[in-house]
């Protein structure tokens, strides 16, 4: 209970008075000792761990106390329990990678009503339930660029497929929508998306789905796997099968996972933003919010430490930057 109660509590809470100040003070200093919590989709997900660790490091720079808490299953319901806990602990800001944009909304609103700043990162929550969304890259940009990248490698010709995470994965679904849209452009008239498969971010399942795709569509030319688990499982399968060299795989992956397959030629290139930068930026934006530098309104600016200045875009979105493309000649420069 108590997830969308916006009555009653407001007056009782001392911090409530500080909630939602009418205007931002861009020159306000970052407060010391801010209590900040990262709530990833799932603890133990290596990608999320990299992001959150970088965020926690960043908090040390501005003398905040940051921590990472979260469920071991990627479910919204567990995240909701954690939000409740974080409210009870009176954190100054909660950073969340939402498993379900709507399901976490009620409790997030309640947190906001108590003066807690909410920053969504990696995966957005519904717009009115958070102050800011730190987007790793513009969703549209990710979706379209993946198609472009694959098209370059297969000369914009042939059947392609997508190997996604779970059917309900918010990010992947958003990107896939843009990919489909991109494919309607005339330059891709010879490329045909034959199937979206779901590997559920599970090695074995992604493996089997890849096999199935290759058997079911013998003329398949390319696969886009916009998920780190999916792309590494697919790469591993292809590298050990007769399809190696015949099929082009790309998508989103971490360099450490993919290094072997880039080196052995299974994969030519794939993309990802720098997850450390994502955590770093999210951490600073939370601090800026909690210190009153910004309120989350469009056009406000803040400085994110070493990353420099960022401007808040439409709907409270801050975009980290363009995704980075990893290839054989640059992959060894990265370790994450």
């Amino acid at each position, binding site marked *: *209970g*108590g*997830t*969308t*109660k916006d009555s009653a*509590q407001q007056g009782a809470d001392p911090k409530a008075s500080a909630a939602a100040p009418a205007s931002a003070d861009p020159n306000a200093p970052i407060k010391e000792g801010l209590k900040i919590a990262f709530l990833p989709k799932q*603890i133990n997900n290596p990608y999320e761990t990299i992001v959150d660790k970088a965020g926690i490091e960043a908090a040390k720079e501005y003398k905040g106390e940051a*921590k990472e*808490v*979260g*469920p*071991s*299953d990627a*479910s*919204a*319901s567990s995240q*909701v*329990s*954690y939000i*409740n*806990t974080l*409210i*009870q*602990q009176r954190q100054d800001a909660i950073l969340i990678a939402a498993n*379900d*944009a*709507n*399901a976490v*909304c*009620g409790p997030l609103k309640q947190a906001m009503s108590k003066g807690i700043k909410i920053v969504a990162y990696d995966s957005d929550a*519904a717009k009115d339930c958070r102050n800011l969304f730190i987007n790793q890259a513009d969703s549209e940009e990710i979706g379209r660029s993946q198609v472009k990248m694959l098209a370059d490698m297969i000369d914009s010709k042939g059947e392609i497929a997508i190997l996604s995470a*779970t*059917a*309900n994965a*918010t990010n992947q*679904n958003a990107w896939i929508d843009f990919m489909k849209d991109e494919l309607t452009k005339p330059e891709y008239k010879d490329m045909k998306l034959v199937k979206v498969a779901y590997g559920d971010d599970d090695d074995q399942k992604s493996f089997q789905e890849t096999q199935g795709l290759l058997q079911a569509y013998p003329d398949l030319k390319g696969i886009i796997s916009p998920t780190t688990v999916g792309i590494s499982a697919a790469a591993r399968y292809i590298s050990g099968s007769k399809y190696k060299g015949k099929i082009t795989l790309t998508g989103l992956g971490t360099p450490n996972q993919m290094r072997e397959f880039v080196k052995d030629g299974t994969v030519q290139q794939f993309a990802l933003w720098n997850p450390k930068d994502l955590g770093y930026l999210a951490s600073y934006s939370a601090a800026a919010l909690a210190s009153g530098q910004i309120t989350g309104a469009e056009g406000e600016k803040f400085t994110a430490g070493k990353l420099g200045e960022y401007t808040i875009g439409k709907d409270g979105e801050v975009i980290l930057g363009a995704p980075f493309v990893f290839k054989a000649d640059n992959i060894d420069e990265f370790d994450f």
Partner: protein
Amino acid sequence: MAPDVTAAKPAEGVSVPAGTGRGSLGRFLRWDVLVGMLLVLVFAGGSAGSPGFASIDNLSFALGDLGEIALIALAMTMLVVAAEVDLSVASVLGLSSALVGSLWDAGWAIESIIPLVIVVGAGCGLVNGLLVTRLGLPSLAVTIGTLALYRGLAYVVLGDRAIAEFPQQYVDLAVNDVPGTPVPYPVMLFILLAAVTGVVLHATGFGRSLFAIGAQEEAAQFAGIRVKRIKLTLFVLSGAIAAFAGVVYTLRYGSARADNGVGLELAVIAAVLLGGVDFDGGRGTLGGVIAGVLLIGLLRNLLMLNDVSTEIQSIVTGLLLIISVITPRLVAAVGRRRIPAPASSPPPPES
């Protein structure tokens, strides 16, 4: 009409002094009572040691968070007492959630969605029940199958869509407290249902039948108990309650998705087992189960408040389960040792 056979040694059996030490000790140290005591301990410790734990807000939230598990646990308790199990409950919950979403999306009124969904849930239960009673298949196997089937149907219904924006007055019903209490409406409903279930299970003929079926099915059948019909009823009930829990879940989170409640079945079963219900059937109390549900929920809440990581929470839950079955044996062993007769051997198989 019964003949007079009371002549010889009439009082022999009755005159044996009742209530040796073991009985009362054993009764007191039953596991369900221990769970209750543990619960009180957690509560007391939490209130004293963790600011925020005993706040109305937090308790209300923690209770509400247990709502679905608690509801499903009611039906599951009766099933397990009757030596059956329903692993498909979480999938029925998911299917129900998906249906609520897609029907709402299609413009149906919530008032007509809810009964329909409950009927579908009952239908799911009926399928389980028919496979178990008509074909004589073990329910563990059947419901592993329907666990996949019903979850699959949820995806068929809703695919990758997520439906939100349910009418506020229903969301409020799923979320808000009964005025003047820290008890959310679904939990209040649970309390009422639990009272009914408790009476049914422990004080009515139906309840007696369940225990008899669980302990010795054939004997129950020979005593004129309609074993199959009762089991079928239980499965239907379990399906209907799971579907209703799906409605509550959907409204509480304001989000209908095909993957809602994945894995919830193990949480329910863990709570039922922690409450001291014997998985082999024929033994257990509803009070124990309720204490078990609350213990798991409040303990997790307390651990979370103290920033204990989810890994440790998992380990604590597991250990609790193990302790829940080990302790009664230890108590029994100690109890036996205290009695003049040190019985060294296992309970004999016969007379």
